């Protein structure tokens, strides 16, 4: 589920790679609070540890995000999913896919891995119930063939979780 999309993907363009190197350096100087980048030599796939914010439903819990960058990043959004086990959240499917508009239609090339991480943490923090999206089973079944969340036509849930 998580790696199949990676096999078909193209190498980073020079622009994408420059930009990512820049982001990586800046991340090292100034990582977003609550996140840890697990260092590998793979610039095109980042694995990032997320710590639930204190005082929220996810306090003291740790999850892992996998961020895959397309050839033409940042024109195209990165693919961001939770590695199993994904947090129980009304916008997060059990296969790790995240229903968050900035990852798809509302992506803008001025956004960065950092800003995406912050948005995801904020989405987690604002949750008032630990549960799966209503259509979880149907959606996850549809994704069995390794479909990327970026191919999903998302219908975004209400802002307020």
């Amino acid at each position, binding site marked *: 589920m998580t790696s199949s999309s990676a096999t078909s993907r193209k190498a980073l363009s020079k622009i994408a790679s420059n930009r990512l190197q820049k982001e990586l350096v800046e991340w090292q100087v*100034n990582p977003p609070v609550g996140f840890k980048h697990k260092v590998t030599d793979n610039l095109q796939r980042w694995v990032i540890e997320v710590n639930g914010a204190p005082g929220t439903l996810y306090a003291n819990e740790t999850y892992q995000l996998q961020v895959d960058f397309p050839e033409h990043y940042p024109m195209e959004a990165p693919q961001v999913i939770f590695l199993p086990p994904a947090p129980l959240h009304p916008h997060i499917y059990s296969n790790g896919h995240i229903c968050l508009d900035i990852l798809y239609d509302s992506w803008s*090339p001025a956004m*960065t891995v950092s800003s995406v991480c912050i948005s995801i943490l904020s989405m987690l923090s604002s949750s008032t119930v630990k549960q799966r999206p209503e259509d979880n089973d149907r959606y996850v079944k549809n994704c069995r063939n390794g479909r990327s969340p970026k191919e999903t036509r998302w219908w975004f849930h209400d802002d307020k979780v």
Partner: protein
Amino acid sequence: MAGHEEEVAMEVEAVQSVYGGDCVVLDRYPPRLHVRIVPRTADVSSQQFVEAVIGISAGPQYPDVPPCVELIESKGLDDRRQKCLLDCILDKARQLSSCSMLVALCEEAVELLSKMNHPEGDCPMCLFPLVPEDTERRDLAFMKLMSCFHCFHSDCIIRWWTWLQNEKQTKVGEVENEKGLESQGNCPVCRKGFQAKDLEHVLTLISSYSSKSSSEGDVAEENGELLQSDSENNRRQRFETIMKVQEENNGLIEPKKDLVVLPGMYITPTITSSTSGTTNDNMEQQQPRDEAVSLETDSCNALNQQKDKAVAPVRNSIGSSKPRGTIEHRNSSTRKNSARNARKPGKHWVRKDYTSRV
């Protein structure tokens, strides 16, 4: 009493005569005005990077009690520069206490904005400084979107524009490729729509050149190789002209001999008066402290900015962690020479078609 009122009324008229349509009088007495302030050096609109509307409201005790001054709206100014602008105007108001000061305060604002008339920080697309520090990347000229004043490297924003147009074509397909639909893009930072005309000053140079280069059969090796060579040179020349005009007008911008001048680049002005000298210092030195603060607020804000904004707060605070504002190239070559060196001979850009996309 009536004499006092008359005096103040004349002052308001003076502001109106100086600022014309840029001055909106909300109340004659006690005076309340909104004045749109643009940098003095902004005769060419593509070279204008900041602007502000300031509100001045005086009480019946004016001018013994200085008026309230607030920033109604601004473009191209981050929080730090907004605050600096306001603080400096208020300082001026205190200095001038009990003198007629409405015109003087507006002039002070013009003075300040003229000094701030340059983009700040990093390009939101590639995250490299808008005004490069190292000489190797100095071929990256910047531009602003005319609609919202957000600044980008010229080739970065054009790449986004081209990307959007290509994406639209693939989405719409051959079915309804209506010519009547005007091409549109949206600002990567604020999402405000912009149109081809916002990029015109750069795009026209591209299309005129691209026809030439395609007949020569030149192909750029990377999709990033936009805007080098002739177009760049062209703009450099235009910039020289603007520079000349600015020098003639008021000598505000006086390049140092050892500076490398880029199109649209801001050169730290020679300080014109003692008071403005200190404000200038404040502007540049406050920075590190402000950044530490903005970092914290950014991560708090993150909780609120979940979905709706394309702003990348963390990038901003990181991006500003290196010194900026003052540009000190150690390069000692003259302007003309550096312009020539920056052009890489034989390199041409073409518009990249993202044919690889489905």
